């Protein structure tokens, strides 16, 4: 019997060999190790974060959030137009009386129209500070006579040659060259 069984085995082996022909996906056995190490980690370590919260925190949460998003509807007060006008009549009457008295009793002197001489140096400097970008230098040049330039005491700082060269090379304004000649 035993020999018969062995012969049967041999026959099968000769025909099909020892290969089951079952296949596995690529890297299957490497991934099993990974899955198992994850499983071990989760089993070993607790799932509790141990974060705590104040007592009754969740019980009052709805109210505090709703307060921020829902605008309370206030009842609209209706005041009649007649009432509004009647309220203001005494005020209007008082204002008219004061105006009448003011116009007849007090003499308002005509303010003199401003003159150039009345403008102080400080006011002029303030105006220049705020309007420097609006000043067109050519207009200034037209306004000032040649004698004015002779009378102005210009204070020149020492300008280095390299700075002059840099200015000329970076400035496309051809009028500079025209003025030199």
């Amino acid at each position, binding site marked *: 019997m035993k020999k018969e069984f062995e012969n049967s085995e041999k026959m099968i082996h000769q025909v099909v060999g020892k290969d089951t022909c079952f296949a596995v996906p690529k890297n299957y056995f490497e991934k099993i190790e990974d899955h198992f*190490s994850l499983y071990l980690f989760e089993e070993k370590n*607790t799932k*509790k*974060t141990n974060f705590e*919260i*104040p007592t009754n925190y*969740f019980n009052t949460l709805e109210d505090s959030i709703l307060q921020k*998003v829902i605008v309370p509807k206030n009842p609209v007060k209706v005041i009649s137009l007649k009432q509004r006008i009647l309220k203001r009549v005494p005020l209007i009457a008082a204002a008219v009386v004061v105006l009448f008295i003011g116009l007849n009793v007090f003499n308002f002197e005509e303010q003199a129209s401003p003159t150039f001489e009345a403008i102080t140096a400080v006011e002029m400097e303030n105006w220049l500070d705020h309007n420097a970008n609006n000043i067109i230098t050519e207009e200034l040049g037209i306004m000032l006579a040649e004698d004015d330039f002779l009378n102005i005491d210009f204070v020149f700082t020492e300008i280095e040659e390299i700075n002059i060269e840099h200015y000329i090379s970076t400035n496309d304004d051809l009028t500079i060259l025209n003025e030199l000649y």
Partner: protein
Amino acid sequence: MTDEVTLLQQLKEPKSKEAAFRELISQYKERLYWHIRKIVISHDDADDVLQNTFIKVFKNIEGFKGASKLYSWMYRIATNESISFINKRAKERKVSISEIHSELATTLESDVYFSGDEIQHILQKAIATLPTKQQLVFNMKYFDELKYSQISEILNTSVGALKASYFHAVKKIETYIQQHNN
């Protein structure tokens, strides 16, 4: 408990919006809170972010088309609000995001709302060393026990990438715990 479809309809109706929103908060407040808390660590900060999340949900619910589940959409808002909070804190203090995470984990030592022992503290510090995305994946998979498909919908990341993220996160945490746990 009202089902999601009905709740959504009620949220979009002006007459029923307030009551429906109250129920929405009631249904989802704890899940969203704990998700936020794991990111920002402090209870006070989590409370702020949670409230901002619900305010955003309230303001934008009419625009929600239902392409994803309502919970996934809210979870996504909560995640973005938490990340924005961390980024803003880092910018204010002129430090990197990883430094902020590390700082937050360190404060747990003296936090009255943390009842963990030393190993729990080490775990939180280990999580803080991970890049933001890995932290999110780890928290959602390990603590919240969400499926990869759910995490994928929330983070808009493929399942394969999430699995890889989770694997790397676990390995790094394991190494950190082994190095710091005497």
